[in-house]
């Protein structure tokens, strides 16, 4: 009897068998209480962030110990070629994916160990997505599309419709709120998507190649809209591989091989400097075509 009790005590008090990996995780992912930091400090903070893709046979290192901070109100472009890890970073920043190691604080909250439903909630309230292929729900009016994030946030119907209408007015599509996505041009669809991204007044606007499917004129319109949102105080992160799109941002972070290659400030925005922005872009496009 006594012996068995001792064994139990020893088991209860001892460290037990924990793998090395788990210890690393425990140290790296010590959660900070949300209320201490939420709403203040940097909007995005990445600490020793590592992403490993486990494809079964081989493990691919997607992101190698990223440390990055984005403050509130910044307009950041994340650049890199395909395979540079910028899409992986975009998925983690958008709370669509979780880091393998390290911390990601969004609005002061560590999202590394949240459940899929908690992540859904974070995406709903804190992130406004703008995708390359617009990702509007087909056969659903522009207004309904803009309402959708508010529907999942359980906003009452009347308030939802009012705000969706206001947002569509804001992006210049008030008259087209009842149009279906396939009745709108690419630029108009992307503006609906931006209105949708703003629906729950998220602190972060996250755009993934937002002009990838648009012609030059629409691209400029969309980027001007982002600049406008930035001037009004929104934090905008645009992931792109195009220099002329990145040129609209205040800060350009270049990615290569899963690591930050450079982090520079950009003061020369298209249409603001001595060089005409439009011509500049067209010139570069011509170069790209070669």
């Amino acid at each position, binding site marked *: 009897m006594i012996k068995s009790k001792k064994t139990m005590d020893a088991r209860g008090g001892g460290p037990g068998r924990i793998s090395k990996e788990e210890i690393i995780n425990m140290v790296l992912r010590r959660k900070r209480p949300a209320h201490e930091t939420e709403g203040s400090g940097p909007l995005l903070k990445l600490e020793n962030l590592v992403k490993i893709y486990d494809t079964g046979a081989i493990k691919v290192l997607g992101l190698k110990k990223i440390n990055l901070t984005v403050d509130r109100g910044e307009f950041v472009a994340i650049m890199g070629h395909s395979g540079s890890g910028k899409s992986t970073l975009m*998925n983690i920043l*958008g709370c*669509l*994916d979780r880091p393998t190691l390290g911390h990601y604080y969004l609005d002061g909250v560590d999202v590394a160990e949240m459940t*899929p*439903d908690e992540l*859904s*909630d974070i*995406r*709903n*309230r804190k992130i406004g*997505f703008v*995708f390359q292929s617009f*990702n*509007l*729900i*087909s*056969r*659903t009016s522009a207004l309904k599309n803009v309402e*959708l*994030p508010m*529907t*999942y*946030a*359980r906003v009452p119907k009347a308030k939802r419709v009012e705000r969706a209408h206001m947002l569509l007015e804001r992006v210049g599509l008030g008259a087209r709120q009842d149009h279906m996505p396939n009745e709108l041009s690419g630029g108009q669809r992307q503006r609906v998507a931006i209105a*949708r991204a703003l629906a*729950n007044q998220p602190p972060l606007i996250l755009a993934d190649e937002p002009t990838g499917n648009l012609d030059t004129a629409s691209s400029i319109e969309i980027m001007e809209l982002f600049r406008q949102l930035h001037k009004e105080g929104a934090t905008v992160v645009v992931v792109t591989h195009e220099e002329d799109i990145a040129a609209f941002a205040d800060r350009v972070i270049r990615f290569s091989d899963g690591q930050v290659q450079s982090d520079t400030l950009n003061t020369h925005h298209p249409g603001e400097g001595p060089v005409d922005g439009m011509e500049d872009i067209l010139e570069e496009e011509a170069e790209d075509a070669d």
Partner: protein
Amino acid sequence: MLIENMKMAFSAIRANKMRSALTMLGIIIGIGSVISIVSIGDTMRGLFADLYKDVGITQAYFSIGYWVDDVRQSDYFNLDEMERAREAFSDQIAYIDSSAFTSDEASYKRTKIKFEYQGIDYNYQDVQPVDMVYGRYLNEGDILGRKKNVVMDTDSARMLFGVENAVGKTFRTTLYGSTDDFTVVGVYRKNMNAFQALMMGGSNSDKGSAFIPYTLLTWPNDNFYQLHVYAKDDVNLDLFFSQFKSYVAKMHGRQPEDIYMYTAMQEMTSVDSMMGGLSMAVGGIAAISLLVGGIGIMNIMLVSVTERTREIGIRKALGARTRDVLIQFLTESAILSACGGIIGVIMGVGLVSLGGALLGMPVVIKPGVILVAVSFSAVVGIFFGLYPASKAAKSDPIDALRYE
């Protein structure tokens, strides 16, 4: 949120009209056939109940059990015993006779037809009413005076005499060895619907039948095999019949278990439970088609989930939780299935009503059956929608967004 989900479900169902209609078809056929078969079964039971009511649900026969080996002279009845029984149970007995039947050839001019004669008392029409069209029923005078008068139905009259109104006509027949002339005093019309005629062996029988005074078939010193009793309407049949059985046993120095009792009630109950079992069994087979319909729904929902992978990804990226997606797809399959169920009910009820109208029979459609059918179809939708919906709900938003 529920209303939102229902709106989304309806728009998704509308978006693929043809596919939705075909998917529903399985449920429509399933529910339609369950409703029709159960209703046909219920209608048949109702018809049987009516049939037994016409036959006389309060009647019973009593005799010595066919399983009794040492049948004695005293196991038979005589008219004295019958009168004593009538008096002993005067509050319960509506009618009693000696259950006398015989048959012989009846001849009128050149026509010779086999006739069946049932010996009755004058008040037989109280318990077994008939629709007299010509003449009168047998009266007390006929019975007590042992008059050679008969009452027959119109079909028998037409067969023997060539006319329906045979009142006053006489024919010749032999009862228990003595040949006599009998006079028709009344003619009645058999009122049977198509179903009853079918069950009773049809009206195109080549035999005639007639009622004659039982006193012609059962003489005061005769022994007869069984008593035929009708209880009054307000009597507790089970109690009365068991009391009467004991009375008969005691009268003949037997135990009640030696007496054979045959009641219309037990016959009807057994037919009814057989019919009930039959319609349950066939309904169960029809319910298999519901299962097939449900699998159809699951199949289509799986296709739909795969097709809408990207939509699911978008919804998840915008903040839809696992539960939101699950409920959205469950709502869709439940609505698909319930719509099929409602259409199936309409078709089933329509079909049964049409059949009833064509056959000129009132049909029984129980509201409970409709309720159960529609709720069952919704349950089928939810059950078979569960797997596709959970597949949709669990999908990873990154994979779903990457899906083309």
